[in-house]
């Protein structure tokens, strides 16, 4: 446990009471609708607000404890905070912005690491510019770099992509993925977009109206049949990590191995052994009681029904176990009745389509 947080705070009519832990590596997503209290939680972590009561510790260092009266002010916390609006200092160049926290760090990052981070974020050509001369995506990258160069003990990202259009988001994702995979830091990522969370996070803390509604590993939680309801929508689908096992060049396919089986997808331009993250929508899984024979789908996985839930008047959501991996499928109530599906039954899951994104090396 690297970040350990539990506090209560009241702001006008809004009461917040949260408790969760975030791991030392990977990204913990604080996910929930606007007004759920996500930013308040990371403001408390950064020391920008002081909760009424509770305790916040990072790597065993107590930052706040209302029992003992401990309060470490923001400037002594070493929190790398990437604000939603960037908050670059307008009177300083990009380089001076980047160096602002670096100069104030107790132990300044060696120049080699500075160059590595500048290169990782693609900032070399921007150093002499002023923030006003940057695009939205560039500004977000500088804000991330500025936080990293202060050699923080933990990173807080408050919707770093929210202000960007779809194209700019795609431009930033690879940088965030490298951040996740290359920095050994606890990262708390605030977002109201499940697409971002599913692509980046390892752990989800689902917030709603100032409370933690659910929390756990991303892969488990997304296939939890209650999750769709709690997060105010339909099931997001299955997200899982896999390794590129083999390229079947003559078939134009790549085989991806995950804990529980293999999936074939159209040839990926990635080396064998590299890791990817897959997303399979709940609507893209078809269930069959018997193994279909003449069918165009490449992926037919034997699975066991773990749970069934009537999700809408028309639909039933099905949680499937396949080795150590869980999948979630959405089928119509009519199909469910016709197939006489029940818990513990063995079925075949036919996967229609898979979306692939890069994944960590860990």
């Amino acid at each position, binding site marked *: 446990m690297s970040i350990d947080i539990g506090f209560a705070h009241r702001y006008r009519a809004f009461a917040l009471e949260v408790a969760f832990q975030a791991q030392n590596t990977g990204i913990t997503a604080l996910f929930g609708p606007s007004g759920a209290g996500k930013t308040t939680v990371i403001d408390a972590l*950064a*020391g*920008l607000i002081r909760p009424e009561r509770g305790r916040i510790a990072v790597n065993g260092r107590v930052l706040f404890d209302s029992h003992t009266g401990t309060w470490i*002010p*923001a*400037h*002594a*916390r*070493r*929190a*790398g*905070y990437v*604000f939603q*609006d960037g*908050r670059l*200092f*307008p*009177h300083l160049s990009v380089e001076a912005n980047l160096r*602002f*926290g670096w100069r*104030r*760090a107790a132990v300044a990052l060696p120049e080699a690491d500075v160059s590595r981070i500048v290169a990782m974020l693609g900032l070399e050509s921007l150093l002499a510019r002023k*923030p*006003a001369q940057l695009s939205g995506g560039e500004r977000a990258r500088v804000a991330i770099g*500025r*936080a990293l160069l*202060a050699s923080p003990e933990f990173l807080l990202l408050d919707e770093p992509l929210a202000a960007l259009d779809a194209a700019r988001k795609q431009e930033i994702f690879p940088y965030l993925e490298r951040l996740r995979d290359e920095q050994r830091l606890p990262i708390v990522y605030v977002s109201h977009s499940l697409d971002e969370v599913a692509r980046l996070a390892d752990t989800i803390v689902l917030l709603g109206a100032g409370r933690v509604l659910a929390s756990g590993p991303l892969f488990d939680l997304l296939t939890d049949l209650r999750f769709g309801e709690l997060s105010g929508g339909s099931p997001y689908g299955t997200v899982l990590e896999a390794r590129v096992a083999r390229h079947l060049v003559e078939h134009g396919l790549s085989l991806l191995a995950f804990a529980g089986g293999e999936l074939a997808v159209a040839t990926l331009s990635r080396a064998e052994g590299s890791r990817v993250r897959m997303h399979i929508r709940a609507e893209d899984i078809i269930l069959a009681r018997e193994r279909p024979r003449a069918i165009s789908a490449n992926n037919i996985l034997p699975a066991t029904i773990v749970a069934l839930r009537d999700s809408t008047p028309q639909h039933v959501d099905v949680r499937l176990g396949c080795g150590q991996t869980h999948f979630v499928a959405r089928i119509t109530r009519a199909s469910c009745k016709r197939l006489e599906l029940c818990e513990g039954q063995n079925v075949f899951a036919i996967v229609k389509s898979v979306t692939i994104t890069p994944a960590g090396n860990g």
Partner: protein
Amino acid sequence: MAALPFAALTAAALANRSFPGKALIDGVLHVPLALPPVVVGYLLLLLFGTRGPLGAWLLQHWGVRFVFSWTGAALASALITFPLQVRAIRGAIEAIDPGLAAAAATLGAGRLDRLVNLTLPLALPGLIAGAITAFAASLGEFGAIITFVSNIPGETRTLPLAIYAALQAPGGEAEAARLCVLSILLALLGLTLAEVANRRVRSFAGR
């Protein structure tokens, strides 16, 4: 005349120092703006006159005398223009996004560090505008100066005092007209500089 640049400098320095507790003394500082300048001058005379409580002490221990000297004129101008400066600077500081200070704090900057490296540089155009406005205003100071330090040529004679003196003297109209033109030019120059500084404030705030 020689007193004027010093008046502006003194005032600017005083305004600078007023930062940390500015909200607290803000109310008191605005009093000179509302009082007739003659009252300010008279109060200064009472306080800093050679027999006044502060004036006597200063003369005795430091040999400093404000009455009838250009330093007194500077002091009076500084006091009168003080609220103007505070207003300009305060406006500039309030135009700064408070989120920037929060960002600086998370990057390890303490309170003083944030003031020196963030607030002051961002408020710099406001500081300049305040100083220029005060300089222009102190050029025109009359009542407080004539009450406090009188009208001594080469020592405490400001432009309006010089103009007044010229008009009182027989055949001084040409001299007065010349001084008036100078006064107008200085005013225009001051206000232009203040406007330039103001624009920079806006471009800063709006990025």
